[in-house]
C-alpha cells in the first residue's frame, strides 16, 4: 500500500482536474439525488427553477468563491480548517473559536450521512439479491419501516434488519479512504467513481425518458406529463383536501379536461375536486419557494460545510481556484438539474402519477417511491441496483469530504498524524452515528441533527464567511486572492454582489425562516429539546461535548496564536 501518512504542510492536490473532481464529488450526493427531486416535485414548475437559478448565481457561486478564497489564504498561512484559517486571516483569537462551527457542523452532518449511506448500500444489495422484492409493491413501505427501524427506537438492532452490516461497511469504507490521505485517497476515489456515477445515471435517465406512457389505463401518466409538471412555468392542477392529485395536460381539450376531473372525482368519492391555475407570477411570489430554492443551493453546493474551505487550503498559491470552483459548481448542477431531476420526477409522474410525486417526502421519494418505480419498469432489479449503488458512491464521495475538515483540524492543532486523527474522528463520529441509528423512532436523531447541524449551522457559517471576507479581511484583498492564478476573469461587480447582494439575500432568507419558525408555526425541533426527547437531546448533548473538546484542543494547542498582519490593508 502506498504511504498513507502525509504531513499537512506538504500535501497539495495533484492536478486541477483532480481538485475539481474531488470538490464536485463532495457536492454531489444526497442533495442532488434525493433532496432536489423531492423539492422539484413539491414546488413543481418553472417558478421553482427560476428561483433556484437566481439562488445559484447570486448566493451559490459568490459564496463558493468566498469560501475558496478564505480556504486558500488559510492554507498559504498554514491553516487547513475553518478555525485556523479564520484565526490566521483575522489575527484574532475570537475568530478561532467562531471557526470551530465550521469543523463541528460537517462532523454532525457526517454522523447521519453514514447512516443514510447504510440505507443506500442496503437498498442496493437487497434489490440485487431479491430481499427487496420488486413484485409486491404493497410491501415497499413495510420493507422501508423494517429495514430502517422507523417504527421504534433500537428496532434496527432487533435482528430483523440487516442494516447494521451495511452501516458498518459504510463507516469502514469512509475511514479507510480518509486514512489514505488527500491526494492518495480522495482524489483517486473521485477519479474513477465520478465517471462511473455519471455513466450509470445517464443509463437510468435514458431508460426513464423512453418510458412513454407505461400504463394504458392511465393515459395521463406519461413522461411528457412528468416533464411538464417539472418545467411548465404555469399549470392547472387538481386538488383534493389541499393535496395535489393530478395535473391537467397542457394541450388538453375542454372535453379531455372534464373527463380527467370526472376520473379524479371517481377516485375520491364524496370529496370536492378543485381546479387551480398557478401562474408563474403566483409561484414567484411564494416566499417558501425562495427559501426552499436557496436552501437547496446551500445543501447541494456544500456551502458552509467547511469542506470546500479545507479542500481549497490544499491548493498551491499560484494555482487557479476561481475556475475550479465554477467548474465544480457546474458539474454539480448538471448532475442535479440535468440528470437527477430529469430522472426521478418524470419517472415518478409517469409511473405513479402526480399525486405520488408531489406528496412524497424527500427521503420517501428515494426509498419508498423509487422501488415502486423500478418495479413498474422492465429490468427494474438491474436499474434499482444501479441507482442505489450510484447513490451510495455519490454519498461516499460526499462524506469523505465532510469528515476531512475535522481530520485537518486535529492534524494541525494537536499535530496528530493522519492515522491518529482518523481514529479520533472515527471515535467521535461513531458515538453520534450510533445514536442516529438507535433513535430511529420517527427518525428523531437524524432529523434533529439535520436541522441543527445541516440547516442552522450552514446559515451561521456562511454568515461568518461573508463577515470575515468583507469586514475583517477586506473584499479587495479577498478578490485579489481569488484572482491569483485564475484562468478566468472575475466578473465585474463581483465585489458589489459579495458586499451587498449576497448578504441581503442571506439576511432576508434567514429572517423569513426565523419569523416563520418562531411566530407562524412552532418549531418542532425546539419543542423536542424542551420536552427532553432522548432522541433529540442526546445527539445534541454529544455535539455540545464535542464542541467543548474542540475548544480544549484549540486552547491546549501551541499553534495559531496572534501574528502580524500579512495582507496590506484594504484600499478605501
Amino acid at each position, binding site marked *: 500500500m502506498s504511504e498513507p501518512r502525509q504531513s499537512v504542510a506538504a500535501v497539495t492536490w495533484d492536478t486541477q482536474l483532480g481538485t475539481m473532481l474531488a470538490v464536485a464529488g463532495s457536492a454531489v450526493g444526497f442533495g442532488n439525488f434525493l433532496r432536489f427531486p423531492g423539492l422539484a416535485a413539491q414546488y413543481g414548475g418553472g417558478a421553482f427553477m427560476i428561483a433556484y437559478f437566481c439562488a445559484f448565481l447570486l448566493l451559490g457561486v459568490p459564496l463558493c468563491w468566498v469560501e475558496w478564497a478564505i480556504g486558500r489564504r488559510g492554507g498559504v498561512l498554514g491553516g487547513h480548517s475553518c478555525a485556523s484559517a479564520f484565526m490566521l486571516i483575522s489575527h484574532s483569537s475570537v475568530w478561532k473559536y467562531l471557526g470551530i462551527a465550521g469543523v463541528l457542523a460537517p462532523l454532525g452532518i457526517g454522523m447521519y450521512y453514514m447512516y443514510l449511506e447504510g440505507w443506500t448500500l442496503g437498498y442496493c444489495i437487497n434489490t440485487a439479491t431479491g430481499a427487496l422484492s420488486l413484485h409486491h409493491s404493497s410491501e415497499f413501505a413495510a420493507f422501508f419501516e423494517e429495514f430502517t427501524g422507523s417504527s421504534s427506537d433500537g428496532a434496527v438492532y432487533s435482528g430483523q434488519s440487516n442494516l447494521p452490516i451495511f452501516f458498518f461497511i459504510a463507516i469502514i469504507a469512509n475511514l479507510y479512504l480518509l486514512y489514505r490521505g488527500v491526494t492518495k485517497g480522495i482524489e483517486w476515489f473521485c477519479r474513477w467513481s465520478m465517471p462511473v456515477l455519471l455513466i450509470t445515471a445517464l443509463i437510468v435517465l435514458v431508460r426513464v425518458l423512453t418510458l412513454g406512457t407505461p400504463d394504458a389505463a392511465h393515459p395521463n401518466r406519461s413522461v411528457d406529463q412528468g416533464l411538464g409538471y417539472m*418545467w*411548465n412555468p404555469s399549470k392547472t392542477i387538481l386538488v383534493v383536501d389541499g393535496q395535489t392529485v393530478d395535473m391537467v395536460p397542457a394541450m388538453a381539450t375542454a372535453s379531455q379536461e372534464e373527463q380527467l376531473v370526472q376520473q379524479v372525482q371517481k377516485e375520491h368519492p364524496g370529496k370536492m375536486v378543485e381546479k387551480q391555475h398557478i401562474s408563474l407570477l403566483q409561484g414567484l411570489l411564494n416566499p417558501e419557494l425562495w427559501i426552499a430554492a436557496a436552501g437547496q443551493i446551500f445543501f447541494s453546493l456544500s456551502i458552509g460545510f467547511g469542506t470546500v474551505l479545507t479542500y481549497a487550503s490544499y491548493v498551491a498559491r499560484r494555482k487557479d481556484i476561481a475556475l475550479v470552483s465554477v467548474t465544480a459548481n457546474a458539474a454539480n448542477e448538471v448532475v442535479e438539474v*440535468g440528470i437527477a431531476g430529469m430522472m426521478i420526477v418524470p419517472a415518478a409522474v409517469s409511473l405513479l402519477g402526480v399525486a405520488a410525486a408531489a406528496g412524497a417526502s424527500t427521503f420517501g421519494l428515494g426509498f419508498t417511491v423509487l422501488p415502486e418505480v423500478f418495479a413498474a419498469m422492465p429490468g427494474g432489479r438491474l436499474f434499482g441496483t444501479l441507482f442505489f449503488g450510484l447513490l451510495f458512491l455519490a454519498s461516499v464521495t460526499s462524506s469523505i469530504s465532510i469528515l476531512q475538515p475535522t481530520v485537518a483540524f486535529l492534524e494541525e492543532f494537536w499535530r496528530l498524524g493522519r492515522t491518529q486523527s482518523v481514529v479520533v474522528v472515527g471515535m467521535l463520529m461513531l458515538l453520534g452515528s450510533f445514536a442516529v441509528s438507535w433513535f430511529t423512532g420517527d427518525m428523531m436523531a437524524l432529523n434533529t441533527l439535520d436541522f441543527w447541524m445541516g440547516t442552522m449551522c450552514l446559515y451561521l457559517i456562511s454568515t461568518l464567511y461573508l463577515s470575515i471576507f468583507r469586514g475583517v479581511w477586506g473584499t479587495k484583498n479577498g478578490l485579489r486572492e481569488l484572482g491569483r492564478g485564475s484562468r478566468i476573469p472575475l466578473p465585474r461587480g463581483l465585489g458589489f454582489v459579495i458586499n451587498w447582494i449576497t448578504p441581503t439575500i442571506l439576511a432576508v432568507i434567514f429572517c423569513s425562516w426565523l419569523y416563520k419558525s418562531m411566530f407562524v408555526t412552532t418549531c418542532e425541533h425546539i419543542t423536542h429539546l424542551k420536552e427532553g426527547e432522548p432522541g433529540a437531546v442526546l445527539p445534541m448533548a454529544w455535539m455540545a461535548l464535542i464542541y467543548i473538546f474542540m475548544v480544549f484542543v484549540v486552547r491546549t494547542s501551541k499553534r495559531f496564536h496572534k501574528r502580524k498582519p500579512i495582507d496590506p490593508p484594504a484600499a478605501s
Partner: protein
Amino acid sequence: MTLPGIITMLLSIGFVWILLIVCMRRLLSRDEEKQPKNRRKKSLSE
C-alpha cells in the same frame, strides 16, 4: 409540456451544460499544458 416549459428546460439544462463544457475545456487545457513537456523528456530519453 408547453412551449414556455420547453424553453425553461432547454435554457436551464443548456446553461449548466454549456457552463460545464466551457469550464472543463479551460481546466483540461491547463492540465494538458504540462503533459507535452513530460512527453518531450520521455522521447529524448528514449
